[in-house]
Structure formats: structure tokens, C-alpha cells
């Protein structure tokens, strides 16, 4: 009898603690994500201790009375209770591989680790991952999962789920943009495993498109990587000609799951040989040897080579400088113009040689602007390159203005769009800003920032106060503060600092 009362008392205390968790620490905003996560951890931990404690004590009592069958039954019930409270291992190993999307979502709504920072987003992500295993995607199911995201403020796992939904619908560009944006989120609102899934998809997508430099780079960035991503990174390292021991590759392959599926890549990487380059002076200011096309200079061939490098994610500032100098020499070469003029006359063209060269110049500048790498800061004094940068910057500013207008219209609408749509629009603005800032002086960057900051400041207030999307508002404010600091706009940074300090 005493034991029974003891167990009942223990369970009552545990249930009481889980229903009313202790107050968060003093330096933690009670309505913030961190406080909510801590409360979830406390509730979940207490319930787990209660269930397992009750099961073990009750089973021991039954065992001491010689009731082995009852003891095993009690332990089994406690085990099932624990599995219901912590469904992730079962969902990951059983329901997701089976493609049981509906059940995976429903069970994951119970919560538990690793989705304590974003329970709703985590449940939706479980459902979406199960959909990704199916032969055919169920569009109705995707819509239902998408609608489920709107039931709580958008957080990290929800954003990853949005990216996967876009990928399953075949919208690769949107998927890349959204999944890439996960790195901007505060750790308090993004479960680490959601980041891992995002990184995995981005690496797989880059490998599928043959962007092995990107695979290598992505596998080295970030904090948490899956074993498959680590193996892909090593394979990419060998494929692009960077030295790596074959045994390191083999060990990574053995550690990764789905070894049958990755065998062909492992074999390719195993056989890859490192190209032995002759050590020569690169001569970046000299034109390359092989001329091509009607122009008969090296610029056309070099243009194609640099575009190929850029598409593979391997273009750098030096190669772009070299290309721009080659075009400078070609476009202002009178022999070249004479050749074009002669050919235009032979073909009886309506347009003049000047019109043809202007059109060519525009094409080249637009291409070069698009090839600028992220790290383009110090550029050579090339007319073509400067014009390319300028055209590219103007195009991005125009895009930013359009997107901001679109965002304001969406915010002012009677039924504003879901948070995932707002996040996608924000990420597009941020990316366009990053592209506009490539290779330009700080004062030009400041002009772009000034135009964007006014609108974004209002958006942050609306997201925080009206939509209760603290995570989104916090991420945008954080970006505004960082950018304002870079541009020495300390007053602007102070305006947005409270949204950062309050946390997501």
C-alpha cells in the first residue's frame, strides 16, 4: 500500500510540474522562443521521468511479488508511453522511409526532441520528408501540410519544410533560395537537425548539377553535417582535383548510409587523378592564345570558359579581370570593327556596325555582371567590368524596389499572405541586395541600403506587432543592424537593435 501511494505521489508531482513549469531565467523574455523552448524541455523531461519512473518502480514491485507477467506488461506499457512521447526515432526509421506522410505528421505533432524549438514546423517537415520518399508527390497532401504551417509562427523547421515543398513541386530556384536562408536564423528557433536536412538537400542539388566546387564548399561550411554530406564533400574534393587520401574517402563512404546508392560516386572519386599543373606565370594581363568567332580575338573563347567556370561555381575575380581586359581590347579595336563592318556589308545587314557592337557590348556587360563572384570586392580598372557591375547593380536595385513594393502591398492586403511567402520575398530582397553590393564602392552600397531600410523597418514593426512573427522580424532586424554597422550607420543600427536584443 505504501509503495502504491508513493508511486501515485510521484506521478502527481511530475504531472503538476509538466502542467506548470518553473518560470524562465530572469534574462530570458517569457514570451520569447528561448523561454518557450525551455518550458517545452521541462515539460517533456518531467513526463519522460514520470513515465519511466512509474514503469520501473511498478515493475520492480510486481517482480518482487513474483508476478513476472505483470512486470513485463507494465514495462511494455511504459515503453510504449515513452515512444509516444518521443516519436522521432520511429518516424525517422519507419514512417519516413515508408512514405507515410499523414501518419508521420500526426505523430510528430505530439512533439518531443528534436523539434522542441519548432514543434509545428518539425511535424510538417516530417510529413514533407515522407512525401520526398514517395514515387509520386501528392499535391493535396502538400497543400494540407503547407496550410498546417500557418497555425503557428514560422520558425526554422517550418522554413526548411517550405523549401522542401518547393523542391517537390519542381521549383528548384525557390527551394535553393529558401534552404540557403536557414543559416540566417537564430539558433533558438531552428532545430539543428532542420539545418542538416537543408544542407543535405543543397549538397545533393549541387552534385546533381555537376557543381562540385559548390559541393566541396558547402560540405566544409556549417556546423552540423550528415555522414552522406561529409562523404559527398570528400568525393567532390577529389573530383575537382584537390588532394585527398583514397582511404579517407573510403572511410567516409563506409560511415555513410545508403552505400549502395553512393557506390558509383565513390568509385568515380576513387579513380579521379589529380591533374599535375605546370608552374607557369599566369600572365593575367595578357590575352590568351586561341582566337575565335568573327571577332577573331581571344575574348569570345575566354568568355565561354569563364561562363563555364561561373556555372560550375569556380569563377574568381582574377579570371573575371582577365576576361574584362580581353573585351576592353577587343571592343575598342579598329581591326575588329572593320571585320564586323565588312561582314555586315557582305550580309547586307540593316543595322550599322555601331549598333551591332553596342548590342554585343550590352550582352557582354550583362553576362559579366552575372558572373561576379560573391567575394568581388577589389576589381581591376576595366571599362567593361565597371559597366558590367553598374548594369548589374541597377538591375538589382530595380528588382529590390519591385520586391519591396510587392511586400508592402502584401502587408497592406486585408488577408496578408502566409509567413512562408513573406519569408521567401524577404530572402529574395536580401539576395538581390547582396548581388547589388558586389564590386561597388561603399557610398553606392549605402544608397541601396537607404532605399531598402525605410521599407524594411516598417515591415519589421508590422511583423513583430501585428503578425506576431518574431522570428522573421528578428532575422530582418539582425541583417539591418549588421549592414548598418558595415556602412557606419550607427543611428540606424540603434533603431533596429531592440528587435535583435529581444530575441526571436
Amino acid at each position, binding site marked *: 500500500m505504501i509503495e502504491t501511494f508513493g508511486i501515485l505521489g510521484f506521478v502527481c508531482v511530475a504531472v503538476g510540474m509538466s502542467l506548470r513549469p518553473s518560470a524562465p531565467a530572469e534574462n530570458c523574455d517569457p514570451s520569447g522562443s528561448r523561454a518557450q523552448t525551455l518550458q517545452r524541455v521541462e515539460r517533456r523531461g518531467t513526463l519522460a521521468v514520470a513515465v519511466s519512473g512509474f514503469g520501473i518502480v511498478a515493475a520492480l514491485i510486481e517482480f518482487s511479488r513474483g508476478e513476472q507477467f505483470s512486470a513485463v506488461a507494465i514495462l511494455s506499457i511504459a515503453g510504449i508511453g515513452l515512444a509516444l512521447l518521443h516519436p522521432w526515432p520511429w518516424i525517422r526509421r519507419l514512417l519516413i522511409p515508408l512514405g507515410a506522410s499523414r501518419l508521420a505528421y500526426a505523430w510528430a505533432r505530439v512533439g518531443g526532441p528534436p523539434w522542441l524549438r519548432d514543434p509545428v514546423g518539425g511535424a510538417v517537415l516530417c510529413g514533407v520528408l515522407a512525401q*520526398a*520518399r*514517395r*514515387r509520386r*508527390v501528392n499535391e493535396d497532401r502538400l497543400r494540407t501540410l503547407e496550410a498546417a504551417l500557418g497555425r503557428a509562427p514560422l520558425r526554422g523547421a517550418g522554413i526548411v519544410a517550405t523549401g522542401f515543398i518547393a*523542391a*517537390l513541386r*519542381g521549383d*528548384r530556384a525557390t527551394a535553393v533560395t529558401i534552404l540557403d536562408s536557414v543559416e540566417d536564423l537564430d539558433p533558438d528557433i531552428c532545430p539543428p537537425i532542420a539545418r542538416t536536412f537543408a544542407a*543535405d*538537400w543543397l*549538397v*545533393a*542539388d549541387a*552534385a*546533381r*548539377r*555537376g557543381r*562540385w566546387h559548390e559541393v566541396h564548399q558547402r560540405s566544409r561550411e556549417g556546423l552540423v553535417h*550528415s555522414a*552522406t554530406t561529409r562523404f*559527398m564533400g570528400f568525393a567532390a574534393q577529389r*573530383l*575537382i582535383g584537390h588532394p585527398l587520401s583514397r582511404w579517407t574517402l573510403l572511410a567516409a563512404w563506409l560511415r*555513410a548510409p*545508403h552505400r549502395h*546508392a553512393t557506390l*558509383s*560516386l565513390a568509385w*568515380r572519386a576513387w579513380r*579521379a587523378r589529380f591533374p599535375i599543373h605546370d608552374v607557369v606565370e599566369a600572365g593575367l594581363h595578357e590575352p590568351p592564345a*586561341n*582566337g*575565335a*568567332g*568573327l*571577332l577573331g580575338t581571344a575574348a*569570345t*573563347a575566354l*568568355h*565561354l*570558359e569563364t*561562363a*563555364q*567556370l561561373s*556555372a*560550375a561555381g569556380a569563377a574568381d575575380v582574377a579570371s573575371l579581370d582577365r576576361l574584362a581586359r580581353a573585351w576592353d581590347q577587343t571592343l575598342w579595336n579598329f581591326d575588329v570593327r572593320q571585320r564586323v563592318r565588312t*561582314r*555586315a556589308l557582305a*550580309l*547586307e*545587314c*540593316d*543595322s550599322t556596325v555601331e549598333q*551591332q557592337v553596342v*548590342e*554585343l557590348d550590352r550582352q557582354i556587360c550583362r*553576362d559579366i555582371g*552575372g*558572373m561576379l563572384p560573391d567575394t568581388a570586392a577589389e576589381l581591376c580598372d576595366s571599362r567593361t567590368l565597371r559597366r558590367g557591375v553598374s548594369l548589374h547593380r541597377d538591375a538589382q536595385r530595380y528588382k529590390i524596389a519591385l520586391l519591396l513594393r510587392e511586400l508592402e502591398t502584401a502587408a497592406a492586403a486585408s488577408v496578408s499572405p502566409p509567413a512562408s511567402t513573406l519569408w521567401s520575398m524577404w530572402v529574395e530582397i536580401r539576395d538581390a541586395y547582396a548581388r547589388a553590393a558586389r564590386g561597388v564602392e561603399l557610398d553606392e552600397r549605402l544608397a541601396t541600403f537607404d532605399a531598402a531600410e525605410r521599407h524594411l523597418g516598417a515591415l519589421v514593426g508590422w511583423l513583430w506587432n501585428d503578425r506576431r512573427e518574431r522570428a522573421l522580424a528578428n532575422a530582418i532586424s539582425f541583417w539591418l543592424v549588421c549592414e548598418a554597422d558595415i556602412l557606419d550607420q550607427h543611428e540606424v543600427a540603434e533603431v533596429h537593435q531592440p528587435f535583435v536584443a529581444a530575441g526571436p
Partner: protein
Amino acid sequence: MGEVDKELAWEPLRRVAENPFFILDIGAAATKAQIRARSRALSDALSNGEPWAAKYFTPLGNRLRTPKLVEWATAELLHPDRRLGHELWHFESSQHQPIPTPEPWPEAMRAYGWRSQ
């Protein structure tokens, strides 16, 4: 280069990969009569299912040739202004050696257990 069509949607690469001179497999000095004759020959070969006509060579690898593409390339080359624009981006096969880049891996999604898109 392999027989697989790579992702060439980006304008600077598409300009070369879909250059009408490559599609019709003729030199930059071809006359209008030669262009028309080549176009007819290719259209007939494609409608008869001749395997040699199904693909064309570019500095970026072999690409799929379709009747619609042949029709478009012929129209482009018969227009003097547009032809001149294409001549600016046309390479003779010996003028450009493609950069040896590792091939894509289309099964990458399967490595994570996801369906290939």
C-alpha cells in the same frame, strides 16, 4: 564530352549551345542556298529517324536536335542582322577546347533516400 545534355539555361552558355551554326552543322561562310539545303536535309533525316541527325556538337557537349530547333536556326541564319549576331558567338570546333569539368551526378538525391526530381 559526354552525351548527356548539361543544364545550359544560363544565357552566356545557351548562346553558344544553341548557336544556329552548330544546330545546322555548317560553317560561318555558308550561303543562303546552303543553309536552306542543309535545313531540308536535316528535317528529312529527323522525320525518318536517322540516328546521326538526332544530336549536334557544340563546344559545351552534344545536344539534342529537334525539327523545331532546325526550323528556328534556319530562320535565324536567313535574317542578316540576326545571323551576324550569331557569327560573333560561333566557334570552329578546333578553336575551343572545353574545360574538363567533372560530370554531374543525377542520382545525388537518391544518396539521401529522396526521390530524383
